[in-house]
């Protein structure tokens, strides 16, 4: 059984986000500048619209399609695949670990992202800032600074009258 084929292709994680954006070509450029993304694949339609592209950010891949591409037109008509601009927001944000969240945050803002929440140390041990990119997708840029025992997080939440149930 050792030679059995892997059911996850090499290089992919179990879960990969698939982003629908308005003007995917510009979005890819933004992700390159802001997050140092590398482009692994791009398929364009005859009019130049990005049918789909695969980018690598850190150790993770993301897929991107243009919201007006033929690739997503059929799903978009049913509401399944629309850009954040078209929806007025996005119901899936991204929490991304980088080595220096302050530096990446500044780069992203310089590249056109908007600050949602400035970078700050959080009780769970991460230093994070939240931003909205120029295409409406939301990113929480994080660096893990210290290990916090779950008891300590619980204590903090108890102080703010919340309960945590860790398993």
């Amino acid at each position, binding site marked *: 059984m050792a030679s059995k084929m892997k*059911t*996850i*292709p*090499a*290089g*992919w*994680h*179990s*879960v*990969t*986000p*698939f*982003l*629908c*954006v308005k003007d995917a070509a510009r979005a890819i450029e933004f992700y*390159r*500048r802001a*997050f*140092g993304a*590398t482009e692994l*694949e791009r398929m364009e339609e005859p009019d130049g619209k990005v049918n789909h592209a695969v980018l690598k950010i*850190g*150790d*993770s*891949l993301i897929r991107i399609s243009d919201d007006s591409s033929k690739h997503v037109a059929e*799903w978009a008509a*049913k*509401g*399944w*695949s*629309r850009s954040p601009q*078209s*929806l*007025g*927001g*996005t*119901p*899936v*944000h*991204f*929490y*991304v*670990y*980088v*080595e220096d969240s302050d530096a*990446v945050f*500044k780069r992203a803002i310089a590249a056109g992202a908007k600050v*949602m929440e400035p970078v700050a140390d959080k009780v769970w041990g991460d230093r994070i800032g939240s931003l*909205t990119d120029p295409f*409406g997708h*939301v990113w*929480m840029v994080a*660096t*893990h600074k210290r290990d916090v025992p779950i008891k300590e997080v619980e204590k903090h*939440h108890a102080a703010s009258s*919340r*309960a*945590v*149930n860790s*398993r």
Partner: protein
Amino acid sequence: MLYGTAVETSEVSFAEDPRVPEQSEKSARPEEAPAAPRRGIMPFMYVEGAGRAADFYKQVFGATELMREFDPDGTTVNHAQLKIGDTMIMLSDPASQDVRESGSQGVYRTPHQYGGSSVHLYVYVANVDEVFKRAIAAGAKVIDPVEDKEWGDRCGGIEDPFGHVWWVGTAIKDLPPKDSN
């Protein structure tokens, strides 16, 4: 000046946490909850009923629950963290006190509230047909039935009961990694 032309060429470094076991290894901390993976990109999903959504993802995708956090009422789950395969996902309920008190619930909405989603999730599983059936039995809607796709996966699309869209796939052809060239 930090952000001149350097922005275009410099590489961003990403955290590699040596404490995170690879997916094929057993957890090094068997007595505790599994360590949360601290690398890569984790989807943070807004749902009506984070507890019910966590249960759905556990039942359908075999997710492991890492954490569940309650409002003061002790029953409303405001936040949950799960691991599907090697990837962590986080769930949050915009109706929870936690989010309401944050004062910025306008940006925290669910697919049902938006009337759709701008981020789908592609999930690799060992047996797509089984997972697809489980998903439908648990209340998901079919977007695209399971079939062999030209990109080397057997794959189908569903909308889960919370409005999130998943493409469930199993690799059936050995293809070179995307960044192998």
